[in-house]
């Protein structure tokens, strides 16, 4: 069925620059970035902390406005957040006041679907991420890995053209992370969508991606564009192969090159929130 459709999710980025911060604090987080991504491709963006990879993701999601340049998906310019471009954050953003099922069905509710219909669709997607029995739970009752699975399900229920992931497994323990990577690839073979996956974990990037973009520290630019032709389905055994090690060493060299500068972490919504004092004494 999907063969008949024209694949959706082609990304076109031209001369993209993004400025963060106000006044004298302003700086270019991303500078003159050019990149095209084919529909259905799994792209990993690798780079040191604060290099602007999350900023790029935020712009793709529509949360950040570019200063110059254009950004379009399937020929349509990105002008704001849209259910067509789903975003998964490092820390889950599930609504604590909604059950797992209602969280997943949220996008469908926004589209005006009836309760029965959206619950059926939510349960279907929950089964896909392996959480059949947890539809009635509150998000706080789940483990970190399960919360991220719900988060992914909540985005996928909208059948997005782009799945944007900002270090989604970065906060999980090593074993859970490996399981989540395998699960993500499994889901991706069934729901083909373009994935842009930001990480600073070289193993993770090499294991998941069709294509690897390496970014330089601030201002963020692409310094390497690698095709990864490891056959799919991929298993954990891949990480012990010699080509894998060779590529890993290559990536390490690229990143080590820029050692010594520690930049504050950016996020897809811009700068980390300022910790301002409360205005009232309560």
């Amino acid at each position, binding site marked *: 069925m999907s063969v008949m459709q024209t694949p959706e999710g082609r990304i076109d980025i031209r001369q993209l620059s993004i400025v963060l911060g106000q006044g004298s604090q302003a700086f270019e987080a991303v500078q003159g970035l050019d990149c095209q991504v084919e529909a259905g491709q799994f792209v990993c963006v690798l780079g040191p902390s604060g290099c602007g990879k999350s900023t790029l993701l935020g712009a793709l999601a529509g*949360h950040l406005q570019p200063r110059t340049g254009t950004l379009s998906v399937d020929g349509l310019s990105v002008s704001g*957040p849209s259910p067509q471009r789903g*975003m998964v954050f490092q820390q889950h*953003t599930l609504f604590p*006041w909604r059950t797992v099922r209602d969280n997943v069905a*949220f996008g469908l509710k926004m589209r005006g679907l009836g309760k029965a219909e959206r619950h059926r669709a939510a349960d279907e997607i929950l089964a896909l991420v392996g959480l059949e029995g947890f539809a009635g739970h509150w998000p706080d009752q*789940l483990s970190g890995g399960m919360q991220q699975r719900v988060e992914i399900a909540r985005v996928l229920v909208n059948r997005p053209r782009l799945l944007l992931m900002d270090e989604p497994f970065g906060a999980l323990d090593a074993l859970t992370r490996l399981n989540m990577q395998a699960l993500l690839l499994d889901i991706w073979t069934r729901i083909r969508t373009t994935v842009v996956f930001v990480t600073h974990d070289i193993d993770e990037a090499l294991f998941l991606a069709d294509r690897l973009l390496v970014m330089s520290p601030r201002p963020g630019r692409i310094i390497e564009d690698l095709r990864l032709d490891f056959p799919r389905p991929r298993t954990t055994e891949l990480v012990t192969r010699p080509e894998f090690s060779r590529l890993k060493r290559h990536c390490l060299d690229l990143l080590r090159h820029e050692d010594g500068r520690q930049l504050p972490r950016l996020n897809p919504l811009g700068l980390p929130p300022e910790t301002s004092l409360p205005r009232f004494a309560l």
Partner: protein
Amino acid sequence: MSRSFSRWLLRAASLLLCLLFWQFAANGHWDLGLVTFANVPTPLAVVQAALGLGDSGNLARHLGSSLGRVFAGYGAALSIGVALGLAIGRSKWAEDLLLPPLEVLRPIPAVAWIPLAILMFPSSELSMVFITFTGALFPILLNTVHGVEGVDRRLIASAKSLGAGRRAILLEVILPGAAPSIITGLAIGMGTSWFCLVTAEMIAGQYGIGYYTWASYTVQNYADIVVGMLLIGVLGMGSSLLIKRLGGLFTPWHRPRGKA
């Protein structure tokens, strides 16, 4: 089990001890120099006075007046406080427009409003409702603003990415996100509105628990004063408890639950 039982026992014993002290001090007309119990009624006299009030048929009238005023003033404070709080928390424009005058009015205690309120409102009834309203407004308003500003902006961003518009973000994200804080404000506001009401009733009232307490003093029914005070305490505590319980029903996710 036995541990919690012994704790309850201790609590009961503590209350009993206070009552005993009161009984001895009042009965013996203790004069401790700085403070004297000469005119303080004994607990027994208070119980008799309470029964007398119940028999006289005026209790319902006093309670009804006070409860009516609290619900009117508190209800107005709830709707206006939450609405203003949402606006101020969401929009810089509303904040700059509304917050400065509110900040000036906030430190004025409700008692200081009484003379002006009597002059401003056509009936003393309305002025008392207004005093109750000012007492409840600020805790509700400030906690709402606090709650709205505390909503994780990533949640708002996610809602936008899932197709939520302005209205949906307000109803589906901001309001439930701020709900625990709003409920705290409502519980505090309930306490302060009782406090303000009683003060207002003492000065401007006809019927009402505060009026009853003050009138008992002027006609030297000392036992009735304590009945009035205890009624105020019980009613204030009961309504705060009610708000907390209702709040818990509205925020079921906020209750601690076991891990799955």
